[in-house]
């Protein structure tokens, strides 16, 4: 499922870009709390998609594609550390007390996320840190995007109200002092790669003015607040967030915990995929005496307009049967064939293979039922898939 999400995203990079030509300009009003229309978008994830896409300027198509999927984006949102612009947009107009409260609201969601590995999160937040300067905060976490904060605010307001109030005191006083620093940093980040943005912007305060996009990071409670460790922490969180996504993509990785084992699995998987490509290309080279099969397929496909449906078929053999006579198909319903396919296939190449299959009569004598049955009996059957029957009917 997740792999499909990823591929979905990868498949429509252009569409996404076309649909949001100026993502940030629309975001400005979105994040303005004073605007009556708080939610331009339907869901958090959609907004996150914009932010993710905007954030990674270096690969504009890859990351929007990567994160276009709502599920993916939601997961990434929990772990991600961007969204500063939302803060900046917020702090511009409203009174200072409102934003910290709201921004603090975002934090508990982040704080409760297991992936961020908050230290000292259980202890009560009302306690002030001994010896903490004016600039230090009681708790810190990666600031989340406002959309997620907003939607979660109603449920979380009570939980974080006290936290917010505590922050409030601290946030107001050093705000002006940090303003210049933030602006300077924001200018820096304009030129930086997005990967480094988190590291560069380790401000403890939201500036009152909306600088360009940069990442807010707060020092965690009980942690050192110097810039290096903050940057380290942000970097680590980013890495762990991405590792989680990898975990979803690589089959069999969910049971494994720990970076070393997971990396091991990933390495094995990548190697196996590469070897499979080699093997399959060799197999294809040996099966086709010439490329004529592929060429004829190509010609056929251009002449056919096949419907873009979802075929949860995961073998080519049933696809063959689709295009034969109805009589054959009726009989074939009872002999569903599917090849063993370890990878979960959401939509197979039904369309391509259908094109291929339809071309066969031109090259070979027409199939008869007996031929197909004999193929079946040759041991081609590995599994029978129930839903294939229904899909075959749909295709009719």
């Amino acid at each position, binding site marked *: 499922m997740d792999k*499909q999400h990823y*591929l979905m995203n990868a498949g429509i990079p252009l569409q996404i870009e076309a649909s949001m030509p100026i993502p940030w300009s629309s975001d400005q009003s979105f994040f303005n709390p004073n605007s009556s229309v708080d939610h331009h978008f339907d869901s958090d994830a959609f907004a996150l998609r914009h932010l993710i896409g905007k954030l990674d300027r270096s690969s504009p198509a890859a990351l929007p594609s990567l994160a276009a999927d709502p599920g993916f984006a939601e997961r990434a949102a929990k772990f991600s550390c961007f969204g500063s612009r939302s803060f900046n947009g917020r702090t511009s107009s409203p009174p200072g007390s409102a934003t910290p409260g709201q921004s603090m609201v975002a934090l508990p969601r982040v704080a409760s996320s297991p992936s961020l590995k908050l230290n000292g999160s259980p202890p009560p937040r009302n306690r002030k840190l001994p010896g903490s300067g004016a600039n230090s905060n009681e708790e810190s976490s990666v600031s989340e995007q406002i959309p997620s904060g907003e939607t979660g605010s109603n449920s979380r307001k009570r939980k974080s109200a006290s936290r917010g109030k505590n922050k409030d005191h601290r946030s107001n006083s050093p705000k002006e002092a940090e303003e210049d620093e933030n602006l300077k940093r924001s200018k820096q980040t304009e030129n930086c790669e997005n990967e480094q943005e988190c590291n560069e912007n380790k401000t403890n305060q939201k500036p009152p003015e909306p600088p360009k996009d940069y990442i807010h990071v707060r020092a965690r409670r009980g942690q050192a607040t110097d810039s290096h460790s903050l940057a380290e922490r942000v970097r680590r969180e980013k890495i762990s967030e991405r590792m989680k996504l990898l975990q979803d993509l690589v089959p069999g990785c969910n049971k494994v915990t720990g970076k070393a084992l997971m990396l091991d699995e990933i390495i094995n998987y*990548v190697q196996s*995929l590469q070897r499979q490509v080699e093997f399959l290309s060799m197999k294809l080279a040996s099966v086709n005496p010439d490329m004529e099969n592929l060429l004829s*397929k190509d010609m056929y496909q251009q002449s056919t307009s096949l419907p873009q449906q979802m075929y949860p078929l995961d073998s080519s053999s049933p696809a063959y049967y689709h295009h034969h006579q109805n009589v054959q198909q009726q009989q074939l319903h009872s002999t569903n064939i599917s090849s063993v396919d370890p990878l979960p296939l*959401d939509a197979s190449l039904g369309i*391509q293979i259908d094109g291929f299959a339809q071309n066969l009569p031109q090259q070979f004598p027409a199939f008869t039922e007996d031929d197909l049955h004999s193929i079946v009996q040759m041991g081609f059957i590995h599994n029978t898939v129930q839903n294939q029957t229904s899909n075959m009917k749909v295709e009719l």
Partner: protein
Amino acid sequence: MQNSSSSSSLMVKQEFFTKWKKGLKIYSAFNKEMTIMERKRAIKLSADVAIASTRSATTQWSRAVVAEVSSSAAGAARIAAEEILGRKLSTERRKAQAGKKIVRRRRKAAARGAVRSSAAAVAKKVVRNRRRVLKRLIPGWKKLDEICLIKETLDYIASLQVQVDVMRHLANAGETLHHQQILL
């Protein structure tokens, strides 16, 4: 949701498939008779360029694949790759990549001293080694730093899955056809 995600992955697969066929067509136009190894190389190269082109040079690995092909390919391969990509390949080697430069940071840990045998340090070393191994698997690994590595791995794995899917289906179809040929 399922439909949309499946349909878009289907789109990726179709895009890959058409590009791949394009490349193979060019190969077969060049020489009708190819040895099996030549065919295999042709298939693999076309597939690699096709799957890299589906990313439109947005990821590091796809750029690296294209760069590798453009520097080492000749004749039919080059033309096939150009056709798939829709553009001319740069023939001269690029001296300084405009992309990321990896700054080797002096490891402060080395300065910190001798407590190396602790469990955490050993674990860190293991993880670091594995990261290095993973890095070398991905095309264009020289330019990947740690954060990019994981992102590139994500993208690369997904693309490899698409490639393997398509190829496997094609191989199955071809095999079935072959068997039918035997029967008839």
